[in-house]
């Protein structure tokens, strides 16, 4: 019996995107773009602590830079679509790659965050849709009236509804998990790994994820505690 199975070689043009590695590079780059957005968005949100005038002024300012706002939005939407497309394709490959699972399988080294990316991702997507419908479009505004332009009011009134806040906090925790893996993983995907630097990068990813989560969560918590009203 033969030890190597060799049948005729097929010449194919295989593109970058066709490979799992190429998809991960795309996920790394789009992930980096979305990560920058998460930081920028947080910086904007934290202005809520400076009062309604400042916060509404900031929101108004974003709308005065019309074209730029839409450019950024288009880039973000494209990033989200590419990021998700690659995920779905990799998930389908994963399913095909092990149709019969183990009766017992023990994770020995990987982080909880890395193993739950396939879960934290879709839930975050659901959150983003809900979040846009609530605060950007104003279709969903439980417990209060959505006032176009009065962002401060919308946020405070929105978060007074306890389940909105709980859902928000839960989603932000998942975002933290997603970032904790994603921030270092994108470097690995584009080919950067170094025995001395990568451990530092992993710690940095954890710290950055925690800071971002705390920053976002502080807003609903402050509203619920009555600090922001």
């Amino acid at each position: 019996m033969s030890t190597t199975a060799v049948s005729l070689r097929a010449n194919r043009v295989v593109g970058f995107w066709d490979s799992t590695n190429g998809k991960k590079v795309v996920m790394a780059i789009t992930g980096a773009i979305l990560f920058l957005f998460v930081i920028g968005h947080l910086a904007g949100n934290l202005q809520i602590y400076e009062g309604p005038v400042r916060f509404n002024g900031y929101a108004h300012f974003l709308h005065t830079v019309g074209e730029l706002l839409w450019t950024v939005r288009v880039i973000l939407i494209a990033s989200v679509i590419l990021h998700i497309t690659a995920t779905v394709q990799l998930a389908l490959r994963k399913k095909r790659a092990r149709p019969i699972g183990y009766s017992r399988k023990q994770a020995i080294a990987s982080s909880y965050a890395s193993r739950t990316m396939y879960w934290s991702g879709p839930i975050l997507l659901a959150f983003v849709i809900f979040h846009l419908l609530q605060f950007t479009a104003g279709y969903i505004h439980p417990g209060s009236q959505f006032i176009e332009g009065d962002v401060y009011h919308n946020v405070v009134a929105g978060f007074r509804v306890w389940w909105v806040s709980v859902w928000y906090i839960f989603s932000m925790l998942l975002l933290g998990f997603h970032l904790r893996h994603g921030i270092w993983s994108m470097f690995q995907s584009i080919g950067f790994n170094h025995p001395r630097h990568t451990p530092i990068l992993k710690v940095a990813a954890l710290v950055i994820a925690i800071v971002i989560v705390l920053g976002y969560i502080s807003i609903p918590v402050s509203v619920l505690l009555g600090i922001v009203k």
Partner: protein
Amino acid sequence: MKLTLKIWRQKNTNEKGRFVSYTVDNVNPDMSMLECLDVLNETLIERGEEPVAFEHDCREGICGSCGFMINGIPHGPMPATTVCQLTMRHFKDGQELTIEPWRASAFPLIKDLVVDRRSFDRIIASGGYISINTGNAPDANSIPVGKDIADKAMDAAACIGCGACVAACPNASAALFTGAKIAHLSILPQGQPERDRRALQMVAQMNAENFGGCTNIGECTAACPKEIPLEVIATMNRDFIRGSWKERDSTVRTITPMTEWSTGSKLDIDPHATS
């Protein structure tokens, strides 16, 4: 020592498999896991039952033939150890061990604990070589290689192709193996001429097989008996990006994966026969 071995038994690729529990009474703590299976097989043969099929060759951790899951961990609980090196003293008297083959579509099951890992051979064949002139051996040190580079290449070259990385990976990805096979050549001066092609071809072959894609989880490196670091996957990614950018000809050759066995046209050998 007395152990209960819950072993996956499957006659051949197509038949359904199931777990069968065996009690082995006279386990010597100094035995290896494979010797423990040998002891079990002897009693099975005496009883006229089918022995458990498993792969082995060197029994000293260097050939990569052996390997199966023990209690959900490839090659068992000890780090940097193959099942042929794993001694039974690491288990407790009376313990139950669940023994399962590697599970991956790219590793179709042949029998019991034996899987077909020719997909690895095809990945190596697609680019794991360098071009050198044959003939006299070149002078030693005619190409200077720094110690740290040589060490790094040796670390990657330690991969024995056992398949534990694929078995451990939640995606059943062969990234650690392919990364090791790319890295041990591409970081040496001798590996430079084919560097870009090699990455493109080996990655294409890896993707032509039924492996999943790497999502940087890191189970592989913990399960690897040779402790191949995740760094080799980054090296593969870097070479792949570099190659994709630089190569002028984007035609990549892949070998069509094949799961049948050629039995030789005249002799009608049944590959699933026990003897």
